[in-house]
């Protein structure tokens, strides 16, 4: 399928969008610190997200220590345990995954893959990063305020979140909510840029249906985020008012510790609706960029065009749309009218259809491909397997009658860690191994990378497969210590200890990756402009790493889709998107 006109001599149309004038930095500070270049902003976003992600990793170690060997570390008392849970969840979902996929990969790849010079509004883009950094700093400040961070659980359910006996009630919850509000403001600034750049800032020949699936994934996720984050924003504002000035939006009449609190008549369920109206799309805000990136990784490293490109695009859009009407499947145990349960179970299961289309298409892309087991390919394959496994347990939990007994067990923890923890993280690693050569000009070390992959991939399974089992055995989640419970077999304690040991190893193995990032920066093999022999535009820049403005004097012109691999009759096994039609291959 060669996407070129039969008449190769068609002259170019005049550009619809005139070439922009870039902001040219005049000092070191405006070039590298307060930079308006999307590529620098992307690196800033990525490094900040990875740094805060490492903090969350350490928090998960502490939790695992308590779960595997209760009482071993006396520092982890019940209050601290809840604080660990809360911060681990919040950081991983929002400050790491969302920020890295959209702020990191989005900023780097959107202009480059679309043949743009930069985002459409570089100044706003820069503000986006600095507000994100402020949000992260406010979040981290929670560790140092009196009373420590909030221990309300990452879902921050009221009324418990702001009651006096919850850890972090004096300051932690305030800091958390303010940080979320800042994050949303910062994200909106970036998100508007990503959307407008995709819609209005492409180079000549780049139609929407010629965009690489990476961009489709990021674009759809950003649109979703712009519509879903408002619910979290409103919920955060209202809870902040409840906590600070004593309104009763979410707070019913409560007697706590023998004392009637001043709250009256609020609706705690309202918060759950608002939170999950954001929270469920959030799952796909993280997943869709991963879907897009993995499609490109598979196609490039199997030297084969993606199977069913159009269906892949529509599946992304369909998943994005459907994810707005499934939120209450997180609330089956909160109680709801059975017909609502039926509705939300049905919509939830319908999402399996576009998702399955994507999985089949990835597998069919691999089918008879020229599969190179490069690092990005390994991580992409790891993602497909993990995502299918995590997705299948999602079918269990999407059904009301199955969800109710499983909802408060470790089964749920295992499910969402597989599907939205491990799976997107594998894609992030794969994507970093794939694009690091473009960002730095050097390859990451393959031996270290393979070591990193196998420990991470196998380790994740050793951690989360047994966790499904202990969940089915009835081990509840969010418990500091379950002690002796008649219905929980003693063997689960052994498994819990095993999981902890593996988790410590896998966590430590991430240092290999960090070391690889730092070491390869100077000592990695020089990569050249296009080490993977890929078709997309970011590999066709005149310089590597791409210079300010990306494209030298003239913007590239796109003549074909992003997946011209192994085209019969072509001289090379790939045809870059900007390669003009050649009569020999047309």
């Amino acid at each position, binding site marked *: *399928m060669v*996407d070129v*006109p*039969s*008449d190769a001599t*068609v*002259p170019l*149309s005049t*550009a*619809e*969008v005139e070439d922009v*004038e870039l*902001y040219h930095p005049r000092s070191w500070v405006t070039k590298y610190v307060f930079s308006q270049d999307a590529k620098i902003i992307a690196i800033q976003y990525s490094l900040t997200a990875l740094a805060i992600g490492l903090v969350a990793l350490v928090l998960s170690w502490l939790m695992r220590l308590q779960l595997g060997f209760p009482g071993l570390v006396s520092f982890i008392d019940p209050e601290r345990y809840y604080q660990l849970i809360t911060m681990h969840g919040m950081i991983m979902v929002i400050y790491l995954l969302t920020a890295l996929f959209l702020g990191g990969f989005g900023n780097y790849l959107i202009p480059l893959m679309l043949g743009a010079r930069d985002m*459409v*509004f*570089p*100044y706003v883009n820069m503000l986006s990063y600095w507000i994100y950094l402020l949000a992260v700093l406010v979040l981290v400040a929670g560790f140092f305020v009196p009373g420590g961070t909030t221990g309300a659980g990452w879902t921050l359910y009221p009324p418990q979140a702001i009651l006096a006996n919850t850890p972090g009630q004096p300051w932690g919850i305030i800091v958390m909510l303010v940080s979320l509000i800042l994050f949303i403001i910062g994200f*909106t600034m970036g*998100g*508007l*840029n990503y*959307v*407008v750049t995709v*819609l*209005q*800032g*492409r180079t*000549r*020949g*780049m*139609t*929407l*249906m*010629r965009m690489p699936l990476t961009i489709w994934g990021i674009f759809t996720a950003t649109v979703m985020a*712009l*519509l879903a984050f*408002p*619910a979290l*924003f*409103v919920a955060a*504002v*209202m809870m902040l*008012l409840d906590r600070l*000035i*004593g*309104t*009763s*939006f979410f707070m019913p009449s409560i007697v706590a510790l023998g004392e009637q609190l*001043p709250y009256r*008549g*609020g609706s705690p369920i*309202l918060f759950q*609706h*608002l939170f999950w*109206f954001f929270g469920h799309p959030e799952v796909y805000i993280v997943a869709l960029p991963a879907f897009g990136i993995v499609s490109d990784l598979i196609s490039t490293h199997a030297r084969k065009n993606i199977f069913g*490109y159009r269906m892949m695009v529509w599946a992304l859009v369909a998943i994005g749309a459907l994810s707005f009407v499934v939120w209450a499947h997180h609330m089956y145990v909160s109680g709801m009218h059975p017909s609502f349960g039926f509705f939300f179970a049905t919509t939830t299961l319908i999402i399996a259809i576009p998702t399955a289309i994507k999985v089949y298409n990835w597998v069919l892309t691999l089918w008879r491909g020229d599969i190179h087991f490069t690092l990005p390919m390994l991580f992409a394959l790891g993602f497909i397997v993990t995502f299918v496994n995590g997705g299948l347990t999602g079918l269990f939990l999407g059904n009301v009658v199955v969800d109710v007994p499983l909802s408060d067990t470790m089964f749920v923890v295992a499910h969402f860690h597989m599907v939205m923890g491990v799976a997107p993280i594998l894609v992030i690693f794969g994507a970093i191994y794939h694009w690091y050569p473009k960002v730095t000009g050097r390859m990451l070390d393959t031996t270290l990378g393979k070591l990193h992959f196998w420990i991470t991939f196998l380790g994740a399974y050793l951690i989360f497969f047994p966790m499904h089992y202990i969940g089915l055995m009835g081990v509840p989640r969010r418990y500091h210590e379950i002690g002796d419970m008649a219905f929980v077999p003693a063997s689960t304690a052994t498994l819990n200890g095993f999981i902890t040991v593996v988790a410590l190893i896998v966590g430590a193995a991430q240092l290999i990756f960090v070391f690889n990032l730092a070491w390869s920066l100077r000592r990695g093999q020089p990569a050249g402009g296009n080490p993977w022999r890929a078709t997309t535009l970011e590999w066709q820049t005149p310089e590597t790493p791409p210079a300010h403005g990306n494209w030298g004097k003239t913007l590239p012109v*796109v*003549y*074909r*889709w992003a997946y011209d691999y192994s085209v019969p009759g072509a001289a090379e096994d790939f045809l870059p998107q900007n390669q003009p039609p050649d009569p020999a291959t047309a």
Partner: protein
Amino acid sequence: MNELSPTALRPEGTHLTGWSSVEADWSADQRAFRTASWGKAMMWIFLLSDTFIFGTFLISYMTVRMSTVVPWPNPSEVFALEIGGHHLPLILIAIMTFVLISSSGTMAMAVNFGYRRDRRKTAILMLLTALLGATFVGMQAFEWSKLIAEGVRPWGNPWGAEQFGSSFFMITGFHGTHVTIGVIFLLIIARKVWRGDFDQARRGFFTSRKGRYEIVEITGLYWHFVDLVWVFIFALFYLW
């Protein structure tokens, strides 16, 4: 993949209507909305996102209003004024709504004169819009202080459900913030228009990009949006 070259996408001189024009736009080269500049597209998408924020605020307000078991104060009575011995329900709100809607009119005229490159009239009409907006915020402040004087607080009021005060201050406060931001931007841009920045293609202080008269229209989009939101707040909070 269609066999399309960059030129084949938009044959010159063809004029499409209806769905085929939508399809042509979305399958187009370079940009999905042919006539929208980057700034205008960005403002529209921002407003879409902001619609979700206001929508969620209003839905949350309606939820707490329905779920509370305490009676809701009667807005017609709460927002009534005694003027010259007459008891007039919602009179202040009616005036505020009138002022804000009028400001949409002056804004629309400013946009029109902006495209005619009439510097003076554009700037004056923008200032007038800002003045009407500031009047609105001023009357809002009057209303707030009146309610506060009567004992309405976010955490309680003399007449019934405490969510009345909390929703009122939160929603009108959030909307008032929007109006205030709008007034500030109107003033900044009116100054630029007056100074002739857009005629001389003077560069922005932060962005170092050349300004264009289009920014008047973009500000107008925001302003009309804030007015439209007020209509919903008026209907759902005051009239319900």
